[in-house]
């Protein structure tokens, strides 16, 4: 789980109280999405994307 304050400091971002709550919700959604991606992505697969 990402520490919101630590990550904001790393990125030099300032969060208002209202923004902070919305960012937290969005991060939770993205973390859930990332878990789906991690589960489906081949562990040692290629990263090449060529159409």
């Amino acid at each position, binding site marked *: 789980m*990402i520490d*919101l304050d630590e*990550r*904001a400091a790393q*990125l*030099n*971002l*300032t*969060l*208002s109280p*209202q*923004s902070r709550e*919305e*960012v937290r919700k*969005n*991060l939770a*959604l*993205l973390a*859930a*999405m*990332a878990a*789906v*991606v*991690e*589960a*489906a*992505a*081949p*562990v040692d*697969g*290629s*990263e*090449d*994307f060529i*159409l």
Partner: protein
Amino acid sequence: VSRFASAAAIAAHVRAARVTAVSVTEAALDHIAREDGRINAFTAILADRALAQARGVDAKVRAGGDPGSLAGVPFAAKNLFDIEGVTTLAGSIIEADKAPAVEDAPLVARLKDAGAVLLGALNMDEYAYGFTTENSHYGPTRNPHDLERVSGGSSGGSAAAVAAGFTAFSLGSDTNGSIRVPASFCGVYGLKPTFGRLTRRGTYPFVHSLDHVGPFARTVADLALAYDVCQGPDPLEANCVDRGVSPAFPNLGKPVSDLRVGVLGGWFETSAAPESLLAVDLAGEALGAIRGVMLRDAEAARAAAFCLTGLEGGQLHLNDLRARPDDFDPATRDRLIAGVMQPPETLAAVRRLRAAYLGEARALFEDFDILIAPATPFSATRIGEPMIELGGKPMLVRANAGLYAQPISFIGLPVIAAPVKTGARLPIGVQLIAAPWAEQTLFRAAAFLEREGVAGVTDPLAAPELVH
């Protein structure tokens, strides 16, 4: 020439000197002046410039020269396309401080060179991050079929302008569904070509790995005419792949009996409203499709597109997120900040999945030429309505309008969003999806659906909501 005339008909009349480009342009500008106050498709109307351009087209006709395949046809571009002398807003107020563009984006220039007349710039979601065009700075673009409803986004102005008959075609962009979603909601055709087919130079970026550009139109022939003019290499844009011009227009009448068509099941039929599934059924039946075709990992692909959008989009705007956070729409800002905060290692998983998932899709195209899926899970929602209920379950509109579009653009497949005549009051579209670089096949299938009366555009200005 009527307000709802096709680009093909307008160009034929202008080229034959039966009407002037100036009269067509004046009529379009009058229509916009009368109606756009209620729809809000345009953020800039370039009347003087359009009339000057139209006079140039007429002069060419009088001199016996070739005025171009789109002679005198009115069009407009999403306001993330550079237009010489106009500031490229990308739906934001932050960009409004910037200098005007010094030249037209290549796609705008190519269309003007073909005789099309640029009427102005069109509204969009801020920085293209949205599916509704409820822009907090420039106001919502209202759906011409129901003014209480959204036009879809992020190219909402582009779809609404075509649906309302302001322009015969328009330009938009699509990162996660931003052509296909508004095409579905506004009941017009939209083309998201193969990733890298059309040059993006001179457009404000959103997600470099996912950004596409393409046209909207009211007929398949017009979509093909605009697309054919837009094609061509661009040595100044590394992402634009030089595959020569692969014209769509000459192939529209070709039979479709040899096409192997499948309807995508699984992810692409869960969470869809009945009208969305009906549209797919009608298109599938007309094209003799096999049902229940599975594209593995579509849900993960959609999740990956979500993460990638946040990572790249957030990084792109990081300086402004630090320096002027209050100048963003709060909903855009907070998603961009969350996106850039994601752990960097997510990107590697996204890329591995993208490569593998493209392999899954390629394998499907060994057996199918066209795949069909809903363009949107539902028809246009009400302005200001964050949630809708589907099958008794609440669903966030903004996050889910691209549910079926995102897994397709994630791997850059070409798509035509076609409006299907379901008999419902509100329009709804399907995605016709092909293998990379097979746009010609898509156009054949879309033209067939139009000829058969399965797909087509209706004039919304006959609707009670817009009658004076």
